[in-house]
């Protein structure tokens, strides 16, 4: 009951935000928060729930971004048409990456995803057809509403809000389904989960593919909003890290964790940049870094874990490695 009250308050606030804080920059900030929340929530499926820390998620982001911009730059279509293509691309790529790497444990999986992401970035950087280092641009002057190129951030805001709602709904549905249970079990003991009939590799792969698909949508939306993608902004490792940091900061493995993380980090970054960036002394990042450090230091389980009373699984595995 209380959960529903909370949920409706959050939803109402989200819907009302751009009307309450209505300057273009504030609206854009709101839209960006939602955009990153989508990406971080998508990451959360595999990184938080399945416990597979992907540091290369930007490849899927890039799939979406490049598909959207590509459909305009290469075929003169609305970037919207790129979305399904980006999803197909991302899911396919997730399958190709996932089959060999998901059997790797912990750090190796993270490193493998970094390697894939960097490889993709380098390949795209050297591929003329994809704009190489120059990147691809979207329609500079919108031809019609389907070009999704608006002056105001308001349409973006509500579009992103809708996509975020869908992403969260999918995540929620997943965690309460067999798949979600299996993922948690696999995270604790893959061996035991398999002995009980949980198809570990397949379940993780599905989660990875689902996460990839949603991340690709986030990438496509991102590219449409900025009207541009290049290897750095579409496939740079920093975006992976940013997504991951947001989820971790809010609380990985919690439904609203990524949203909380995005709602804190995006404004923090933009506002500290606006206030301090022009001074050129790197103060933005000193502040930004210090705040992240403090949160990690005092709330290692993520900010949302402050409010959620759920025992975090402590390392208690002296006997965890069986013969």
């Amino acid at each position: 009951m209380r959960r529903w009250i909370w949920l409706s308050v959050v939803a109402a606030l989200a819907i009302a935000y751009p009307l309450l804080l209505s300057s273009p920059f504030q609206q854009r900030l709101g839209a960006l928060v939602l955009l990153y929340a989508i990406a971080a929530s998508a990451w959360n499926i595999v990184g938080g729930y399945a416990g597979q820390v992907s540091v290369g998620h930007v490849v899927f982001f890039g799939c979406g971004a490049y598909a959207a911009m590509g459909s305009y730059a290469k075929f003169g279509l609305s970037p919207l048409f790129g979305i399904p293509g980006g999803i197909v691309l991302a899911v396919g790529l997730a399958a190709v990456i996932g089959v060999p790497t998901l059997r790797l444990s912990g750090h190796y999986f993270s490193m493998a995803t970094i390697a894939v992401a960097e490889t993709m970035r380098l390949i795209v950087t050297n591929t003329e057809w994809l704009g190489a280092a120059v990147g691809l641009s979207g329609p500079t002057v919108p031809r019609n509403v389907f070009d999704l190129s608006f002056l105001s951030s308001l349409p973006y805001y509500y579009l992103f809000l809708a996509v975020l709602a869908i992403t969260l709904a999918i995540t929620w549905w997943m965690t309460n389904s067999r798949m979600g249970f299996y993922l948690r079990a696999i995270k604790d003991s893959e061996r035991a989960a398999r002995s009980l009939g949980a198809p570990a590799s397949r379940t993780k792969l599905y989660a990875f593919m689902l996460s990839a698909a949603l991340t690709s949508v986030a990438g496509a939306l991102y590219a449409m909003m900025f009207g541009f993608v290049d290897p750095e902004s579409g496939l740079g490792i920093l975006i992976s890290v940013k997504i991951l940091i947001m989820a971790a900061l809010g609380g990985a493995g919690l439904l609203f964790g990524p949203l909380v993380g995005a709602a804190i980090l995006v404004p923090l970054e933009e506002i500290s940049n606006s206030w301090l960036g022009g001074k050129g002394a790197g103060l933005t990042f000193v502040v930004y870094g210090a705040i992240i450090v403090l949160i990690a230091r005092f709330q290692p389980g993520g900010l949302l874990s402050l409010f959620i009373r759920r025992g975090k699984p402590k390392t208690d595995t002296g006997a965890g490695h069986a013969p």
Partner: protein
Amino acid sequence: MSFVLVQVIVGGLLLGAVYALFSSGLTLVWGMMNIVNFAHGDFVMLGMYVAYVVYTLMGGGPILGAPLATLVLATLGVVVYFALIRDIMKGPMLAQILGTFGLALLLRYSVFWWFGANFLSMPQDIVGGTYAFAGLRIEASRLLAGVVALLVTLGLHLLLTRTSLGSKMLAVAEDQTAAQLMGIRPDTMQAIAWAIAAGATGLAGALIANFFYIVPTVGETLGIVAFVTVSLGGFGSVPGALVAGLLIGVIESLSGYLIGAIYKDIVVYVLFLFFLWFRPQGLMGKM
């Protein structure tokens, strides 16, 4: 084999030794103590700046700069451990990424704030120029770094495998509670591990500074190399990091020369992925 090719391979080996040098600290804390350190590259950067400051303020070359950088970074390692790492270790692995990523930004931009964004460089001949024999040219500064790399990795390896200190550090990494039951104080061991790792990283930075440029963001480039080296070598394996470093150095050099430099990173990554497929624990890692 053509003569140039020999030079390419020798250059690659020296480069690889340097990779190994600045990766050994990472393999220690990441692979063994199970602490992800996203700020590793920035530790290298700090080592470079310490060496540079020593040079500009005191006119000291690597004889003074390298030990000082080791010392300063080792101290920093201990401070970082007690101020941050000890607490984030209580959380999930993600908290470590979060905390050390924040730390990376903090370090990078504190240096930026202090020194500005300009590229700095040590004088070219600070270690004694370039040796040329039989047409082969080897920079003294790189040779020095290579030799130190070998010594450091050997030392670290012996420390971890042959001494009780090493065995205690591994015990703490595996199970802190059980280690306590052995009368081992986890804090102390982890602080020592951080001191060693950060010290080795600082030393690496100081030696690299002799032939590389110095800039606050240099850690980003080097950090990624270290991550790949450590994973290829196998997490926690010091000799693995050495072999992987040399391998990557030579592969980069050869592919850079033969196929084209823009593909050399792709070659390394693809080889790495290919390798993981067949040997998921890395070259010398244990499962």
